[in-house]
């Protein structure tokens, strides 16, 4: 019987073989595309918004599904094998909710649980932010910043042999002189000639002030519920992140108001509910006072935003309009967001008053659903046509 078996065992070099990683790269690309298409939904994703914005959390995103006709795993019966003493009624596992997503998910179950696809590709929140901001078309704002906040700073940048006497760099001049004398054999300071002189020259540098302050105002009257607060929070989260990529320093001032306004902490801003009526002008007046006290417009880019559900005291609206005009004189833009869960009849009294304002710096949007947060962001930041 001829022996056909191979007696050697192959042991080649596979280090250049990249097929698996190459296809995985394509998979990652497709995930990024899918993310881009779904930014509207991801932007208001709870696990991002409700996090502490400082930490970089990983946002779990499902990998691309491979669709096929398959049975619903939750229905029907399946087989398994036990240790030897299983009884009818034994619980052999708990079904993890399909929505179970958490930051930093650990390794999933191996092999023996069919059906649920636990694999999740991850994209860090910075990458996500980059995607979003790229989509928002941000450079428009820089134009404004340059115009408003140039400040001149003087810096000595060069040392030359010619210049004016007030700019004489004495130390270097002395050094040069000693060097020259030493070269002749006699190191000492004396006999300064023109060649020894050194002058500092200066350049006028334009340094851009890179500070921004967001004045976040929110209506905390009884009519603002959890949903409204959540929408406002989503919005502020992304706005602050965006501004942080553009400015060195971003401060946020929180003002909450009902019939009166006061400055609060972030915690109180997002969590404390009030009751009572709504008088928006109080908030705007407080904002103006704070700007006058602490944030001179020459040094700060100011972004006031106000979120409300629109039910203002009717006689207050005209005052609000004039206050808004005063604010806009000092700020980069003024944003107003009206949050209405489901459309309730006619536009609010406040929005109808604002409809009279036609200024490029003024932007108003209505948000009635999580999905509209992203378009609202886009509107605030993207539609600022830069004059050629």
């Amino acid at each position, binding site marked *: 019987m001829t022996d056909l078996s191979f007696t050697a065992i192959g*042991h080649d070099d596979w280090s250049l073989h990249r097929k698996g990683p190459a296809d995985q790269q394509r998979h990652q690309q497709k995930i990024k595309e899918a993310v881009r298409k779904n930014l509207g939904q991801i932007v208001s994703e709870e696990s991002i918004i409700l996090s502490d914005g400082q930490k970089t959390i990983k946002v779990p995103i499902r990998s691309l599904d491979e669709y096929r006709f398959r049975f619903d795993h939750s229905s029907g019966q399946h087989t398994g*094998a*036990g240790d030897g003493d299983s009884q009818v009624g034994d619980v052999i596992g708990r079904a993890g909710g399909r929505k179970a997503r958490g930051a930093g998910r650990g390794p999933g179950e191996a092999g023996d649980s069919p059906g649920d696809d636990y694999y999740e590709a991850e994209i860090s929140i910075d990458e996500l932010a980059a995607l979003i901001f790229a989509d928002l078309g941000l450079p428009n704002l820089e134009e404004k910043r340059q115009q408003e906040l140039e400040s001149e700073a003087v810096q000595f940048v060069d040392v030359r042999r010619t210049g004016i006497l007030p700019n004489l760099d004495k130390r270097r001049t002395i050094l040069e002189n000693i060097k020259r004398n030493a070269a002749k054999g006699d190191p000492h300071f004396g006999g300064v000639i023109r060649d020894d002189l050194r002058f500092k020259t200066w350049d006028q540098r334009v340094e851009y002030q890179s500070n921004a302050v967001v004045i976040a105002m929110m209506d905390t009257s009884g009519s603002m519920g959890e949903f409204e607060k959540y929408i406002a929070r989503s919005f502020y989260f992304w706005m602050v992140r965006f501004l942080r990529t553009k400015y060195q320093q971003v401060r946020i001032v929180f003002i909450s108001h009902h019939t009166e306004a006061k400055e609060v902490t972030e915690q109180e801003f997002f969590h404390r509910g009030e009751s009572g009526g709504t008088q928006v002008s109080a908030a705007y007046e407080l904002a103006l006072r704070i700007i006058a006290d602490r944030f001179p417009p020459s040094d700060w880019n100011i972004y006031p935003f106000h979120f409300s559900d629109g039910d203002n005291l009717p006689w207050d609206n005209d005052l609000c309009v004039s206050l808004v005009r005063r604010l806009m004189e000092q700020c980069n833009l003024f944003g107003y967001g009206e949050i209405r869960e489901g459309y309730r009849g006619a536009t609010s009294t406040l929005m109808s008053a604002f409809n009279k304002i036609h200024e490029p710096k003024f932007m108003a949007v209505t948000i009635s659903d999580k999905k509209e947060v992203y378009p609202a962001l886009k509107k605030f930041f993207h539609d600022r046509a830069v004059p050629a």
Partner: protein
Amino acid sequence: MDDPDVAALEAALGEIWAIARRFGLDPTPTQFELVPAAIMYEFGAYGLPGRFAHWSFGKGYYRMKTQYDYGLSKIYEMVINANPAYAFLMDSNSVLQNKLVIAHVLGHTDFFKHNAYFARTNRGMVESVRLHAERIRQYEFDHGTDTVERFLDAALAIQDHIDPHLRFAAAPPTPAAPPRTNPGSPYADLWELGDEATAARDQDAATRQAQALAPARFPAAPEADLLRFLAQHAPDLALWQRDILEIVRAEMLYFVPQMQTKIVNEGWASFHHARILRELDLTDAETVEFANLNAGVIAPHRRSINPYHLGVKLLEDIERRWDQPSPELQARGIQPGSGRAKLFEVRELENDLSLLRNYLTKALVEELDLYLYERQGNEWIIVEKNWEKVRDGLVDEMTNFGNPLIVVDNADHRRSRELYLVHRHEGRDLDPPYAEKTLAYVQQIWGRPVHLETVLNSDRVLFSHDGTKAARTEL
């Protein structure tokens, strides 16, 4: 693995072959390769080296590799049904681990060579797959990678729906010519008036006439092979698209016997790797390592069937029962000591379904503590331990490879070339969101509106997709 180890392994290879032969195995010549873990996982994800590129393979590769990196699972062996066969060993495994893998692989290649369900597989598949990949690359070059990828996405979504028995379908029987009596006397037809045969013939003629008037049904009988049907009959497909459908079908067809015989094949290989390794001269440390490894491989799983476990136990049970036949078996003519012969018969004739139906006994179900479980609320609960129900449940799970049976019922629905698919519901509902998305892929291939009739929660439901949006209606 360094060179002295490789040399030791090669020496062991010769020994293992000899022992395998002594046990009566007759494996195909097998080329073994030591590869790094990443490559092993890649082949695991693709199934065959050299297959066309697709992101789903990348995803599978990444997932398996991640599980390996986290120490959660390990592929030990990868063997390809071909002639000569190829087998891959992880070069980060110990020598003993690879010895076990070699023994296990020889069991597999023996099985591939002799089992009836593999009789017609393409043993040059590695080469075929490479040619397929080249063609697809050419299409990508001609038509753009995105276009080809989108089409591949659709083709792969329905790749499970092929009919491996298509080649055995006989030509449709020609209608039997009605029997004619000998036209002897001129009055012969009078004798036939009360005759049953005549009555039947007249009725046949009537129905045939009625059928001729009615529009012909296309397809004449429901078609289970979606890929082939679409490749041949989808209107408006370019040749390259039909080719891709046929390529996907051919590659899936190649894997079908392996899917059909998972339990019996793994059982066969595990049965022999244990016996072969016991014949080798192992050190004490190696013996312990082997015992651990073996135990891990054939351990039972709580929520699914481990084919290694079930297969080995079944085969051992068969050997025992045929070596010491009970009175009933003896009455059937089984001779004592015929265990080995019986096993070889099983290796040749059985697939998983037949193995379970024929050889899974009440005693075995109880000894292995097999059960059926289902979801109630948020928990998975055992609901059945009766052996016949458990066996039937196992068989059910494996029918049609665990995939729902979808057939083409009518390719000219509403006389406007709409495709009407039917899900043959046999007790388990489809996963609705997946069904909708997959139907969208079918529509992409068919080009015209498509429908899928199924049953959800005991209601007849019709999914539809017309190219722009999906719909669901009650029937």
